[in-house]
């Protein structure tokens, strides 16, 4: 199963703190050696200031060993630092606690006004803006995400987008909200970041690419946790050459998430997104493939239903081992089945239920019930022939009359538009009025 695990690929593009939950998840999945997972977790944490957490992990990893003194040293140091910052950031905490701040933020037109207000009301000095950012960073590194988030919120309101810390602040805010499971706010931050990056302040294609890659990866938390997350991912990728480019050049593994999102998304937008996805998957087969993309390829390129069935089984395992996708496991299976069935129906006019059941990985009775449900919900134009055990599709022949109607439908309107424009061009008002 490890071959389809993307943790290592994804974590390259994430913050340390964001990787921690991933590792936590992986540890419970039994696809890697537990010791190795713990070790990498330790390595991860050592670099942060979450010393207690690190010590915990160390204990788990080496139950028999003493905790090395460097941990304790670091711990005291961090605690000291934390305390001093807490002390010195009191005025800011005071500002944050003041009641009228939120009101003032929404009232003030831009950051200057806000800074002025703060200077007046809270004896705020402009130099403090940078220190707010620094404090926030420290809180974040120590794992105090909610405080960090508050600070960063304020910081974000106080600086112009040209500030050197603006971008980092945004990223920090996004990380905090993700780690606090504040998906709504996270989505806001995400949007802000996206617009900021799209404005292309870097003037450097490589850097823009890097930022977009990060954005795509960080967004993974949102796509599959927020209620409207899938649509959000689809919006981001459909018709957006910039992000498609990113996927193609740096991280084709995102295709898995895209594919999943397309499969489980609502039907209305299905076809166009699917077409796009199929094209990209076909193009990228040589760099990336996993059961999910192959499932789509089987179904939509080769119309190989047996193959699709096979892949779907593999998908189940992949999904249950993926940190992001595990939550939509059921949705995925349902929709994938439906998709197979739909495609099957479009091609066939008569299907035996037994075969269908096999293809859908159900028992015959289940399958029959399922189909009956579909027909009853008017999602399928078909009849069951229980004597032969067949499903007979309603045929949708296009009669020549319809064809001709289709062809001449707009003729009238168009020629009229033409006539209108001619008339307007000629300036003949009288003839114009006839229409």
């Amino acid at each position: 199963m490890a071959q389809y695990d993307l943790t290592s690929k994804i974590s390259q593009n994430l913050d340390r703190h964001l990787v921690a939950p991933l590792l936590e998840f992986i540890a419970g999945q039994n696809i890697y050696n537990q010791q190795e997972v713990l070790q990498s977790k330790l390595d991860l944490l050592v670099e942060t200031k979450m010393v207690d957490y690190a010590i915990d992990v160390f204990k788990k990893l080496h139950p028999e060993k003493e905790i090395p003194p460097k941990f304790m040293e670091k711990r005291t140091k961090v605690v000291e630092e934390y305390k001093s910052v807490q002390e010195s950031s009191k005025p800011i905490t005071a500002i944050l606690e003041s009641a009228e701040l939120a009101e003032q933020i929404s009232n003030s037109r831009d950051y200057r006004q806000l800074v002025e207000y703060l200077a007046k009301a809270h004896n705020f000095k402009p130099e403090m803006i940078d220190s707010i950012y620094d404090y926030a960073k420290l809180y974040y590194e120590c794992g105090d995400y909610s405080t960090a988030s508050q600070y960063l919120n304020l910081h974000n309101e106080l600086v112009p987008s040209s500030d050197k810390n603006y971008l980092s602040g945004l990223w920090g805010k996004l990380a905090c909200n993700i780690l606090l499971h504040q998906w709504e706010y996270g989505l806001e931050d995400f949007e802000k970041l996206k617009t900021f990056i799209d404005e292309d302040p870097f003037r450097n294609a490589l850097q823009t690419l890097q930022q977009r890659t990060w954005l795509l990866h960080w967004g993974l938390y949102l796509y599959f946790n927020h209620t409207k997350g899938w649509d959000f991912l689809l919006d981001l990728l459909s018709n957006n050459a910039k992000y498609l480019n990113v996927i193609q050049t740096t991280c084709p593994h995102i295709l898995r998430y895209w594919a999943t999102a397309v499969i489980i998304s609502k039907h209305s937008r299905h076809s166009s997104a699917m077409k796009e996805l199929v094209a990209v998957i076909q193009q990228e087969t040589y760099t990336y493939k996993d059961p999910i993309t192959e499932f789509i390829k089987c179904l939509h390129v080769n119309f190989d239903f047996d193959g699709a069935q096979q892949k779907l089984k593999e998908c189940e395992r992949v999904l249950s081992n993926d940190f992001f996708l595990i939550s939509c496991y059921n949705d995925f299976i349902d929709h994938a089945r439906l998709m197979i069935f739909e495609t099957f129906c479009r091609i066939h006019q008569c299907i035996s239920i037994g075969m269908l059941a096999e293809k859908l990985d159900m028992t015959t009775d289940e399958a029959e019930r399922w189909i009956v449900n579909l027909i009853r919900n008017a999602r399928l134009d078909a009849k069951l022939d229980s004597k032969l055990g067949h499903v007979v599709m309603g045929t949708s022949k296009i009669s020549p009359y319809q064809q001709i109607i289709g062809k001449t439908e707009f003729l009238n309107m168009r020629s009229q538009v033409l006539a209108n424009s001619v008339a307007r061009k000629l300036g003949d008002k009288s003839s114009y009025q006839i229409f």
Partner: protein
Amino acid sequence: MSKFYAQGSGSESSGSSSEDDDNEAPVPSKPIPAGKQTVYISDDDEEDSGKRVVRSAKEKRYEEMLGHVKKIKNFKKNNDMSNILDCFEDLIKAHQKALPVIVKEENGSTPLFYLKTLGQMENYVNQQWENKKNMSKINSKCLATLRQKLRKYNKDFEEELLKYRDNPELLDDDDDDLEEKQEARDESGSESEGEKKEKKLKKPSTKKPKDDNESDDSIDWGSDSDESSSSSDEDYADIRSKFLKKTTDKDDAKEKKKADRDKRMQRKKLAKDDDLDDGEGWSVVTGGAQVERPKMFPKDSEINTPAVIKKLAEITAIRGKKGTDRREQIDLLNELETIASAHALGPAVQVKIGFAIVAALFDYSLKVHELQKVQYWIKLIDKINELLNLAIAHKDMKIDENVPEDSEEMEKSPYRVRSCLMTVFERMDEEFLKVLKELDSHSFEYVERVQDERRICEMLERLLTYIISNHLAEDKGIMCRAYYKKIEHMYYKFDVRVLKKKRGEYNGETSVDEMQRLAGYIYAFDTTDRLRTRSILCHIYHHALHDNWFEARDLILMSHLQEVIQHSDPTTQIMYNRAMVQLGICAFRHESVLDSHNCLADLMMSGRVKELLAQGLMPQHRHDRSPEQEKIERSRQVPFHMQLSLDVIECVYLVSAMLIEVPYIAEHEFDAKRRPISKTFYHQLRTLEKQSLTGPAESMREHVVASARHMKKGDWRKCYNALVNEKMDRKVWHYFAIYEYTKDEKQFGVKEMLRRKIREESLRTYLFTYSNVYDSVSIPRLAEMYEMEFQQVHSVVAKMIINQELAASMDEPTKTVVLHRTEPTRLQCMLLQLSDKVNILRETSDRTFETKLQGGPGTMGPGSKGRQFNRMDWKNRRPNQPRGDHHNRGDRDHNRGGDRDHNRGDRNRGDREHNNRDRENQREVVAH
């Protein structure tokens, strides 16, 4: 006295030859018979050739005048009046210029020859005047002008002229006499001026008075005049004493100096008077070259570094000037090199001279005759190799372009030499291609030369290590250039190891990795853009050649080159074409027929494949190109060993066109909107169908067309056999043999691919063509017919159903395809066609309206968008990739839904119009 005389005329000849260069007057060197000339020169040699000859202002003027006289004489023979008139005017001007000199030196008496010319002219004009009627209009007009002018002008000289008219025999003298007379006059004139005007003057800074030849003389003179303003005479004396062997001269130094100064003053004056005559005017006298080669340095003079460098500067100073004998320069430099190496002056000097020789060789290459090219080339490559060895052997030497000229260090380590090995190497590479182009590509010599390629590569390798091991590695520009050269020598060569590696038979570095490394460096560090573009193209070519289809495709998509390539220089465009061709062939091997077609279509549609790939010139009927243009085009040609097989290209293109087009034709047999996807293929098909009798296929095209006809009937076996057989093997497919291999008893390669593809497309064609005959088709039977797996057939049919190409559906329990009989009746069919036609009519009127009245597209709302899309109809119908689409990775068109926009608009309006239309339609139906 006689010596002076001889010298004088000798000087005149030398002077006049320089005049010759500047003025293009053919006169002066001619009149002196060859015999005389040699006599004078041997005279020079016998004597002390260090003596310097100089012409007085008078002589100079007279020569000019004489030149015109001579011209007039020539033109007289042709009765070319207009030219005579021009020359006459020039002559008058020249005389005007000469007047001060004449007044000064001849006491105002007009020179004899001048008077004589005037007299002759008058006679001539009078003579011509009588048979004026026989002349052309222009001539007679000119004659009239001339006559008038001459009369007017001659009035000034009436007296003197009269005197000479009395001696008519004078007027019949020929040129030589005239010349001699003039010389005689010169002599007497100079004599009357006294010793001061002596023409036998010493050269000021002679280094080798004994055996100098004329050419060196004049060089020195040239450089001397440059320095004269800055350095005093004493300096000269110093240098002279250094180089002068022994003054065997009769004249003593003082006199020389004086004469020297005199001469310079004169020269200055001359320069003022006549801008034609500046330092450069004193160039090589070719006459002296035949004589035995002179020594570079006097026998017992000290040869040290500055001396040699000085000498080198002298020799190279004339480089690029008119009339320089490049060959001789090379010889001189070679000699200098031997001297330098004999005296062990250190590597820097050697290198310096080496560079000079190489430069001279490059100059020489322009003039080298084709037959000598090879010889010259060998010389060149040897020399550069030697230079390279020297550079590598001496680590303490810095060879760099950025060393300023004055801070070169030749004598002691660390040496610093201003030059660039890379540039020289690049130039050599160019020469190499030139040499190859000169040779007949099928000859033995060509093969022999191509073997030099290896040597060049090896040299390049060494150069690279040299550059890397030296300071130069920091210079990214040079590294890029060097890497690019390497890429250029590598990209078209096939490396079998790459394919072996893919099959797991080989482990280790291949040229693909190497290429990646080199190109990666250039992508990262190149600042010129040109190198980058080219290395991308080479990289694509290389990938495509080695069957790395995806890498090659991604590279071209990411480079976005197809959008900007029109704006680049022709050579880059040629490279682009080559890369595209290679990419197309690679796509073909990878079964991406559509991509292959798209890659090659542009090229093939143009009908100028040969030209666009620079593999030969096409005869142009419509507009002839000028010789210069032809020369340029010729110089761009790709050498034979790098050329691509045109047959293969065309075959690949036609086959991919066939695989796309034949099912398409079958599908849209009665579609009014059908447009040919590949016009070239259509054309081939039609020409063969026109023939009343078709014999067995001979040429490659005939084979393809024959196979297409079989495919039309859905007969895949015949189709395949027509395409893949012994004849075609020999013509085309053997080029692909290298990519074929067997693994686990399964064949891989182009033929297998074709087999598969042909079966599939034949099946599609079959279904399209014969679906109206069937009510249902059994899939297993289809699978049997086409020797395909049941699954495959199922998949093909399913695809057709989904894409709504085939109105059918499958019946799973019986495993059949049930065709929906939507065959319209005759009337319905006609109506469908009619509605199509009406639509087309509407489109046309829309378009006409826009272009004629609106003055541009896009203003019309719905109509305009619809138009654009209909035009690219076939492309839209196919999923992912019309050409433009395909190449803009990520930027794909998503406007396919554009047609939907037509729904906009107000339906309530224009009922009346609608009725009219309907009536019209009815009428048309009746007409049908």
